[in-house]
């Protein structure tokens, strides 16, 4: 059955009222919301729901991860590549708390996710019962919304609201905690999708005068520059952004979560901003006359020292979330609304333009960066393998069509800097929280949501071991993800800081690693280790050619650094090349 048929059938089923148990209602709500896959881990307080899942297993596929954190990240990976809501489920107490890192990650990266946790019987609430934790209290600061259900009859309405809130406006994670008695009790079930919550305005109305004021500033600008973020991808505004960029001839840079919205090869794509972003867009942020921020939130990793950030520029900010306006950077024009719509309106108001000389400034700085950094990263002459050349091989073999799921650390920055992105939603990484352990489970979710895409996880030896148990999930579910561990036997990014700012005192960053290949093989995953440059190209080729999951360990230079770099708290124009 295809997805629309499933949804139709589900809708028909929900028209009539039926007497069913709370746990069956939960499953029926999920089906009505189009959920066909969820990630989770069972336990006492959620067992009635698992029992129902058994009955519905032909309609909804439950993926048993090896850790609840894995379930949360898998749901995130699923959501990031599909734009649909990811669903994770866990039992009360430790199961629920294990979800928290993934929830916090989803919150800061605006990922739509619904988490369902079991809870002790409601008459035991607050009594320190076995496996009771106040998960609603714990998750409050890291959820878009959360709620505890203690009566079966509340289930349909609360779940409908959960899905609506998770995916509407600026998306985010929602947690619904359901007591065991509510799962067991019966209710008259009828499902209606939620279409609005009176205290919640997901998408603010666009003020056309603000769009006109923005256009006026852009039309008059000599040195305009765009920095776009994930808001473009979440708003499905890639086409509109491209049209704006091309019509007005504006050099455009991206934040880490904005990556891939516009192909890397686009002539007006001038690279990544931020701490390990490209030289030109960072430097020229402090020279542009109009800075156009689209669906990005001026994170401190992007702005460096706010006191010196783009002070010369008029700032225009497009965002869906009113709380982002003037939060970090004072704007001259704010355009609230959905990026697809607001960029569409902006396009009409823009004059055709080219900014050839201004673009030339970016090219000149790129040439400097190429000479000092990129050349050595991609085509090194020294003996040790670089992370950059591994990425280069992956680009070659996947022709820039892969979705790259990266973990956190040096390899992440290298993956974001050097991946070729032809398609949108190709960069799945933990941006705002910087969560090590994200990539392996997120890659599982991504591949399951987009089985037709090549999904390559790029992970450090440190982060890999934070959720290495998910190899078990990959094996059991036969998810054909490609896993590349860039092994430098260090917590590389921390070591880089120790080298640069702590006098090379490598406190607890050196790692003695196990035989990763044997471990992968222990999970029946094809595996190979590369230590020499001559072996690299063939190994990557073999990995990409494989129809199954594949593990590739590449031993890279132990003490390489990622440059350029804006030292923490410094101005973006003080970006270092070495």
């Amino acid at each position, binding site marked *: 059955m295809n997805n629309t048929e499933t949804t139709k059938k589900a809708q028909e089923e929900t028209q009539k009222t039926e007497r069913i148990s709370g746990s069956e209602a939960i499953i029926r709500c999920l089906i009505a919301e189009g959920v066909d896959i969820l990630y989770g881990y069972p336990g006492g307080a959620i067992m009635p729901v698992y029992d129902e899942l058994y009955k519905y297993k032909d309609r909804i596929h439950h993926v048993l991860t090896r850790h609840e954190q894995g379930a949360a990240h898998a749901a995130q990976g699923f959501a990031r590549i599909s734009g649909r809501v990811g669903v994770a489920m866990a039992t009360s107490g430790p199961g629920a708390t294990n979800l928290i890192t993934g929830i916090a990650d989803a919150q800061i990266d605006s990922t739509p996710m619904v988490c369902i946790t079991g809870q002790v019987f409601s008459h035991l609430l607050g009594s320190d019962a076995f496996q009771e934790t106040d998960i609603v*209290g714990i998750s409050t600061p890291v959820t878009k919304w959360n709620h505890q259900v203690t009566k079966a009859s509340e289930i349909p309405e609360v779940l409908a609201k959960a899905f609506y809130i998770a995916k509407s406006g600026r998306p985010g994670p929602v947690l619904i905690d359901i007591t065991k008695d509510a799962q067991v009790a019966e209710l008259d079930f009828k499902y209606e999708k939620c279409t609005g919550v*009176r205290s919640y305005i997901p998408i603010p109305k666009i003020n056309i005068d603000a769009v006109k004021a923005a256009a006026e500033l852009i039309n008059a600008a000599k040195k305009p520059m765009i920095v776009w973020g994930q808001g473009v991808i979440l708003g499905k505004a890639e086409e509109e952004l491209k049209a704006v960029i091309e019509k007005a001839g504006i050099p455009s840079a991206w934040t880490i979560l904005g990556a891939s919205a516009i192909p890397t090869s686009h002539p007006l794509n001038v690279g990544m901003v931020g701490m390990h972003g490209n030289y030109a867009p960072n430097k020229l942020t402090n020279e542009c006359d109009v800075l156009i921020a689209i669906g990005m939130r001026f994170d401190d990793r992007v702005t460096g020292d706010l006191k010196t950030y783009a002070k010369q520029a008029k700032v225009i900010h497009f965002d869906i*979330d009113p709380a982002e306006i003037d939060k970090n950077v004072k704007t001259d024009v704010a355009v609230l609304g959905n990026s697809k719509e607001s960029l569409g309106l902006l396009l009409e108001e823009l004059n055709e333009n080219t900014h050839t000389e201004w673009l030339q400034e970016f090219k000149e700085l790129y040439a400097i960066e190429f000479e000092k950094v990129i050349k050595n990263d991609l085509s090194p002459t020294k003996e040790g393998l670089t992370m950059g050349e591994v990425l280069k091989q992956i680009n070659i073999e996947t022709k820039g069509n892969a979705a790259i799921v990266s973990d956190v650390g040096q390899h992440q920055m290298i993956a974001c800097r050097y991946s070729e992105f032809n398609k949108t939603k190709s960069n799945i990484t933990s941006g705002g929280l910087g969560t090590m352990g994200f990539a392996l489970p997120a890659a599982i979710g991504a591949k399951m949501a987009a089985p037709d895409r090549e999904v390559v996880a790029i992970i450090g030896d440190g982060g890999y071991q934070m959720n290495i148990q998910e190899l078990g999930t990959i094996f059991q579910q036969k998810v054909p993800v490609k896993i590349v561990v860039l092994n430098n036997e260090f917590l590389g990014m921390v070591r880089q800081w120790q080298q640069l700012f702590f006098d090379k005192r490598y406190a607890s960053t050196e790692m003695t690693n196990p035989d990763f290949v044997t471990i992968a093989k222990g999970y029946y995953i094809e595996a190979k280790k590369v230590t020499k440059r001559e072996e690299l190209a063939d190994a990557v080729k073999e990995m990409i050619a494989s129809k199954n999951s594949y593990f590739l360990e590449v031993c890279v230079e132990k003490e390489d650094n990622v440059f350029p770099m804006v030292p923490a708290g410094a101005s973006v124009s003080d970006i270092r090349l070495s």
Partner: protein
Amino acid sequence: MNQEIKTLTISIYTENNIGLLNRISAIFQRRHINIESLTTSQSEIEGVNRFVIVVNITEDQAKKIMGQFEKQIEVIRAYYHTDEETIYTESCMFKIKSSLLFEEPQIQNIIKDSGTRIVTVNKEFFVLEKSGRRNEIESLRRDLNVFGIMQFVRSGRISVTKEEMKITEMLSAFNNQ
């Protein structure tokens, strides 16, 4: 720039839901803003609660946190006002040994002059109640302190604005959607 620290009264209209107090106080906590007083009750609209929170912050800070409040799903609207823009009051109670009421004629004068109400008197103690501005309550407390206070309690601020708040309009607009 509105960088001067002022006493501001924040009014947050919300759905009547468990857990919101947590979300609201977390917003202050994350920004290291100390809450001077907090009152929560039903508002003029059925099913809608109102938090009245007094803080000492700059208007720039206030603007930013209004955005954070309104971002919460169950918050309907948040406003802030300066003292000049509001009519406000606090109330307090004093519990004092009964013997003092008769032995210290001064106390009777204080009660009379300050417009304080006697709530109850029994053998052991009597209870006074007064509503007013913070400085009036403080001055009363200073006067009574001399004689010894068994218990003192002061409420959070309650406040209404001089200007109309458009909240009712907003809600009916939603209901008619």
